[in-house]
């Protein structure tokens, strides 16, 4: 328990020491999303800005107006709104992959990592991360495919039951199990990423193998803080939406924007916290200590041998330990 607390608190302290990373990632997230939603804004402005009907949107979330808007040919196909958002979402993921090595390096550092070191870590580990991501994508994709399909089969079978709630309950249980398994896989690859960066490991397969070994050796110790930090994310999300719905006036644009962005900012913390946990674990358990030169064992100078009596030819006696010069050989 103490060790779990240790990982949680040490991971969190890394995040808190490097708050600027969260800020930059939030800014990146916001900027890319602004680009991603530009087409939506432009189309909506053209239809709504000069119409009385749009007033209905200010006092509630009038679904009729939204659907009416989406139906207008001049608004464009829904795909033309969602695809840019998805592309820019993908860009955020890509930028995260690019900058994450710097984050790992920063977390492991006991001092504020200089900018050039941050970007050096990013550049040095770019292809290594891409390799890890490909392997992680394959492994997690296979697991996700199998698990979701299995869940689907179970839920479909459950629909034959006369208990209407059973399919929903089984789906939720299935999602929980899938979440735990996928989180385990995420831990594995987080450790591999940490090891690659912090060990400057060129052969990522070695990092992946080492991370695999540690993940399953210390699964409970790692999974618990990961789950805890995910629950914090859920709390942030639900809390943010709840505040948004209950405290922000429907016509308050600024209020909605601020609450939305605070929520999104806070939502970034748990994932970075998990990376902090991975770095902390790496430092505690995966760090291969540099083998210090073993100090030469000193042997007291042997006392002059006592004369053996009666020995006609005295033989010199040596100590059982090797001489310093022998040890170094």
């Amino acid at each position, binding site marked *: 328990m103490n060790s779990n607390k240790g990982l949680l608190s040490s991971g969190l302290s890394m995040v808190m020491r490097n708050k600027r990373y969260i800020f930059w990632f939030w800014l990146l*997230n916001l900027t*890319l*999303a*602004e680009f*991603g*939603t530009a087409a*939506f*804004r432009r189309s*909506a*402005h053209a239809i*709504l*800005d*000069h*119409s*009385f*009907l*749009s007033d209905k*949107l*200010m006092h*509630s*979330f*009038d*679904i*009729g*107006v*939204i*659907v*009416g*808007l989406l*139906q207008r040919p001049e608004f464009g196909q829904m795909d033309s*709104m969602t695809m840019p*958002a998805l592309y*820019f*979402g*993908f*860009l*955020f*993921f890509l930028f*995260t*992959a690019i900058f994450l090595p710097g984050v790992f390096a920063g977390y492991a550092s006991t001092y504020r990592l200089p900018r050039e070191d941050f970007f050096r870590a990013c550049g040095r580990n770019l292809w290594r*991360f891409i390799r890890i*991501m490909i392997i992680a*994508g394959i492994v*997690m994709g296979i697991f996700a495919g199998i698990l979701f399909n299995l869940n689907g089969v179970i839920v479909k079978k459950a*629909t034959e039951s*006369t208990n*209407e*709630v059973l399919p*929903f309950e089984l789906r939720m249980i299935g999602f929980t199990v899938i979440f735990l398994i996928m989180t385990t896989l995420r831990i594995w690859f987080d450790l591999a990423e940490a090891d690659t960066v912090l060990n400057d490991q060129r052969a990522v397969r070695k990092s992946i193998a080492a991370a695999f070994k540690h993940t399953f050796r210390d699964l409970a110790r790692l999974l618990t803080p990961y789950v805890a930090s995910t629950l914090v994310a859920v709390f942030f*999300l639900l809390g943010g939406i709840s505040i948004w*719905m209950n405290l922000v006036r429907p*016509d308050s*644009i600024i209020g*909605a*924007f601020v609450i*939305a962005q605070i929520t*999104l900012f806070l*939502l*970034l913390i748990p*994932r970075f916290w998990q990376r902090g946990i991975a770095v902390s674990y790496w430092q505690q358990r995966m760090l291969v200590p540099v083998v210090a030169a073993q100090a030469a064992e000193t042997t007291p100078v042997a006392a002059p041998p006592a004369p053996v009596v009666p020995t006609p030819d005295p033989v010199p006696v040596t100590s059982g330990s090797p001489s310093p010069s022998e040890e170094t050989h």
Partner: protein
Amino acid sequence: MTTRWKIALVAVIVLGVAAFVTRKTVTAAPQAAAPAKTAEAPSMPSGTVSIPDTTLAINSSTPMSQRIVHYEIDAKYNAAKHTIDANEVLTYHNLTGQALDHFPFHLYQNAFQPNATWVREAKRDGSRDTEYDHWDPKEYGSEEITSVEVVGQGDLTKNLQYISPDDGNKDDRTVVDLKLAKPIAPNAFVQFKIAFHEQMPETQARSGWKRDFLLGGQWFPKVGVFWHGAWNCHQYHATTEFFADFGVYDVKLTVPQNEVIGASGIEVSDVNNPDGTKTVTYHGDDIHDFAWTVSPRYKIKEATYQSQMGPIKLRFMMQPAHWDQVDRHEKITRDTLDRFEKWYGPYPYKTLTVVDPEPDSASEGMEYPTFITGGTSWFMPQGLGFPEVVVEHEFGHQYWYGMVATNEFEDAWMDEGINSYTEVKVLDSILGKNTSMINWARMTLGEREEQQFGYASVADRDAMAQNAFDYYNSNSYGGITYGKTASVLLTLEGIIGEDTMAKAMHTYFMKYRFTHPTKEDFLKTIEEVSGKDVRWYFNQAVYGSPVLDYEVSQAESYPLNWYEEKKDKKEPKKGDKDDTVYQTYVALRRKTDFVMPVDVEIKFDNGEKIREHWDGQSRWTRFSYQKKAKVISAEIDPDHTIQLDRNDFNNSRVVEPNPKPTYKLSTYWLFVTQWVSQAMAWWAV
């Protein structure tokens, strides 16, 4: 008492009874607005058969419809195999005024066969319940007449012949024609004794089984309607519903004893049999269909509603997981009954059964006489009004299908559409104009909006007045039949007045209940009640498919002295009187083919409002003004009566743009986009 007095007393009693019997015979003739031929008293050929004039199931001492059919069915349900074996005795009263030598029958359950017209159309266009990506044997249904005897003519089974009057599909067996050995004379009765076997499908088109539940809808051989001089008996199509004559139903249903059962009409008896089954008998008066349901898991609530004609027994058959919603179902039923009785006319039946069908059973949202199915799920917060919408809608069919029995094959809009219109009116009144469907988590959706966008996406596809099976596809059928009709009638309120429209609806119901009115009957009623010639509107809205879309295409002002050097002009300070005269133009465009006069309200920055009227005949018009004020907005249809306009956004133009609504929407969209990208990055790297 002396003998003389005794004789006198007996004489009085005999005379009294005779007078009563005579009155019953006379009043047995149809009541309101019956066709002229009904004036002839039916002549009983031999006195052996007749249609009963019972009133057991209605709050009326006399029959309310012209009773043409009497179905007596004795059916046994095999719950393990989902089959029904039954004997049906159909007594038919020939009031057509001509001899009939053949009788077509609907065999609806044959629709659920791979080459049947219903399945072909559902595969082509999609259906509410299935896309038929693959054929599942459980979806197979069949309805086979094993024998048919016509009393006095013997066994005529060999005379049965499948026909397909609509599309010539030889593989469709949803209509069978029976050629008689001897024609049935006008005013005579004929009796058919039919034995049939039925395989119910896993629920299709609301009928069939799911798990241990069954909804028996369209489940027995049903004679067509002799209408306008010919038999009207269409094949069963993916988008069509039903059409039948009024009469009396006496139905015995034998089912396992553990089943909870509900049906149209009133329950007459419930007898346990030694073989573990029970036989429940139902009776229905002045109805034109009969449906029933069984499931061992229904939970029942019964209540009484005092209607204008007498007490109605309300029976709610709920799924156990929805039991906490039974009061919601009861409340919306009572509120709906209240509005319908006040606005349109009395509900005459003694029962109303509201069935909450098996989840995921494709049996949700269906109407049968005195029997409707709702639709809900175990998670249904109070602000989501879907159960209320479904119950209200299906109840409305008691009026626009159950009593005003229109031909749903040919004029589906007269049932579904008129019902959607009254649904808007009733739900607006009960749950609020903009909140009747959704009023939850700050989201709102009103029923009239839902009808409008249902129609807007298919506005130019089809006309309302066409066969239900001739629509472009099922989306078009839904959008036009439900959404467009509701929008057309809501718009009509603006033309003839809301109160006049209400009066017309009441008149239409009272005049045509228990008959089969045509579209012209409906439209003429509106014209008669309103005293207005609205044919120009009906021709476009009902009989045609032009689209209505008006637009404020221009609203702008500029100073008359715009050409003067700016340096010479004084910028008016705040509070200064602005003596500048402005030239203002407001232009309106009719973007599509539907011609309709419209009003436009123009507002100026000095608070002045001007209303203009435009007949809409040309493609556009322009209003111009010279005032010491600038235009700030122009709005077509400022009273918001033209529900039929496909695009409400361009009905107004505010000169100074108001970007706030877009900012608000963008904030939501931005949040979703950011959150999705964070989630992607969470798992992928």
